[in-house]
C-alpha cells in the first residue's frame, strides 16, 4: 500500500518535472529566437543606414555647392525614420567641422519637418535617455521654435544632471540672450556641476565671431556676486570667466580681489580671483596680489606667487621659490 502511494507520487513528480523542463525549453527557444531576430533587425538597419548614408552624402555636398534645393531631402526621406537618421547623422558630423554659410545650410537640413517633429516628440518622452537624444539634436539646430525653447527651459530643472546639462547645451545656442543667461545661471547654481562642463557653455555663451557685450558682462557680474551662491560655484564661475577670456570682466574681477567682503575671502574664490589677474595680465592688481604672497592657505599663496611672477616685472621671486 505504502509502496503504491510512493510510486504514484514519484510519477506525479516526474510528470511535473517533465512539464517544467518542457516549458523552460520552449521559453529558452523563444528567447533565443527573439534575440536572433533582434540581432538580424539591428544588422539590417545598420546595412540600410550605411546604404542611405552612401546615397545621401554626395547629395548633401551638391546642396552645399548650390546645385540642389533643400526640398530634395524632404522628398527623399518622406516619413522613413532610418532615412531621416542617416541625413541627420551626416549633417551633424559636418556641422562640427564647418562654419559660416555652410553651417547655416546644414542647420536648415536639420530643420526638415520629419526630423524636427521626430525630435520634438523625443523631448516629450517619459525616458530621460530619449529626452537627452532630443536635446542633442536641438543643440545643432537654429533654435527658434518657442515650444522647443519652453521645453528645454523646463528640462533645465530636471533632477537628472546629465539631462539638465543637455538641455542647457541646446539652449545656449539660442539667439535670445535671456535664454542663454538662463542656461548659464541654472547650471552655475547646480550642485555637482564640473568646471569643464560649465566652461563648455561659456565658450558658446557669446554669439559666434562676435565680441562680448556689456549686457552679457552685467549678467555675469550679477551672477557671480549673488549672495546665495556657494563658494565652489563662485570660484568656478570666476575661473570660467577668465579661461573663456571674458575681458569685459577685468575691472570687476580686480574690484572683487580688493574688496573686504567675506564672499571674496574664501580660499577657493580668492585663488580664482588671483588666477584671473594673471590670465588677463592685469598689472594694475600687482600691489593687491603682493598681500597674498605669505597668505596662510597654500592654494592662495601658490596663485599669488604665479601671478606675481607674471605681472610684476621687478619681481624678486624666482620660479623655484614659486613652486617650492
Amino acid at each position, binding site marked *: 500500500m505504502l509502496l503504491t502511494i510512493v510510486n504514484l507520487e514519484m510519477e506525479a513528480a516526474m510528470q511535473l518535472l517533465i512539464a517544467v523542463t518542457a516549458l523552460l525549453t520552449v521559453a529558452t527557444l523563444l528567447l533565443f529566437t527573439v534575440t536572433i531576430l533582434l540581432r538580424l533587425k539591428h544588422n539590417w538597419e545598420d546595412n540600410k543606414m550605411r546604404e542611405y*548614408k*552612401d546615397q545621401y*552624402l*554626395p547629395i548633401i*555636398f551638391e546642396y*552645399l*555647392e548650390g546645385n540642389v534645393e533643400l526640398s530634395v531631402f524632404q522628398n527623399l526621406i518622406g516619413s522613413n525614420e532610418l532615412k531621416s537618421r542617416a541625413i541627420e547623422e*551626416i549633417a551633424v*558630423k*559636418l556641422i*562640427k*567641422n*564647418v*562654419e559660416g554659410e555652410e553651417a547655416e545650410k546644414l542647420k536648415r537640413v536639420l530643420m526638415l519637418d520629419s526630423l524636427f517633429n521626430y525630435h520634438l516628440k523625443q523631448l516629450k518622452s517619459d525616458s530621460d535617455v530619449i529626452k537627452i537624444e532630443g536635446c542633442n539634436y536641438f543643440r545643432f539646430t537654429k533654435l527658434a521654435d518657442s515650444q522647443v525653447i519652453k521645453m528645454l527651459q523646463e528640462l533645465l530643472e530636471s533632477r537628472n544632471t546629465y539631462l539638465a546639462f543637455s538641455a542647457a547645451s541646446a539652449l545656449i545656442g539660442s539667439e535670445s540672450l535671456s535664454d542663454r543667461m538662463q542656461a548659464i545661471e541654472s547650471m552655475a547654481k547646480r550642485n555637482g556641476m564640473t568646471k569643464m562642463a560649465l566652461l563648455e557653455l561659456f565658450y558658446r555663451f557669446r554669439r559666434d565671431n562676435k565680441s562680448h557685450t556689456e549686457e552679457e558682462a552685467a549678467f555675469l557680474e550679477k551672477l557671480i556676486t549673488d549672495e546665495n551662491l556657494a563658494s565652489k560655484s563662485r570660484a568656478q564661475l570666476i575661473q570660467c570667466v577668465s579661461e573663456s577670456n571674458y575681458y569685459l570682466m577685468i575691472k570687476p574681477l580686480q574690484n572683487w580681489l580688493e574688496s573686504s567682503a567675506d564672499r571674496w575671502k574664501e580660499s577657493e574664490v580668492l585663488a580664482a580671483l588671483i588666477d584671473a589677474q594673471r590670465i588677463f595680465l592685469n598689472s594694475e592688481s600687482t600691489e593687491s596680489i603682493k598681500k597674498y604672497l605669505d597668505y596662510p592657505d597654500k592654494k592662495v599663496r601658490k596663485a599669488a606667487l604665479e601671478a606675481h611672477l607674471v605681472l610684476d616685472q621687478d619681481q624678486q621671486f624666482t620660479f623655484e621659490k614659486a613652486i617650492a
Partner: protein
Amino acid sequence: MAQDVSTVLLIEDDPVISKLIEFKLKRNNYKFVLRENGTSGLNAIHELRPDLVILDIMLPSVNGLEILRKIRENKDLDNIRVIMLSASMKMKDKKQAFELGAKDYIVKPFETEELMIRVKKAIEN
C-alpha cells in the same frame, strides 16, 4: 603657362570626413586622392609621391603613426609633408606624431577653413 597643381593624398576611413576634405581641397584647386586604409595609403604614397599627405591616426590595417614611421624611414619619401588628423587631444599622441616628423597635427572635429590654411602653409614650406 599652367600653374602647378599640388596633389594631396588623404588617408582616412570616415566617408563623411573624407568627402568634406575632398570638397574643400577641390574648391581650393588641389588635386585630391583618397585611400581608406593604411596599406593602400602606403602604396599610394610610393606610387604618387604626393606633395602632402593628410593622415588619420586611427585606421584599419596599419595605423597612421606606423605609416608616418615608414615614410620617415624611407629616404626617397622623407621629403613628403604629413599632417596628422586625430580625435585624440592627448599631448602624448601629439608629441609622438611630431617626433616622428609630422608637419602639423589637427584634432577632430576641426574647422575646415583652418585645415585649408594649414594645408597651404605645409605645402608652401
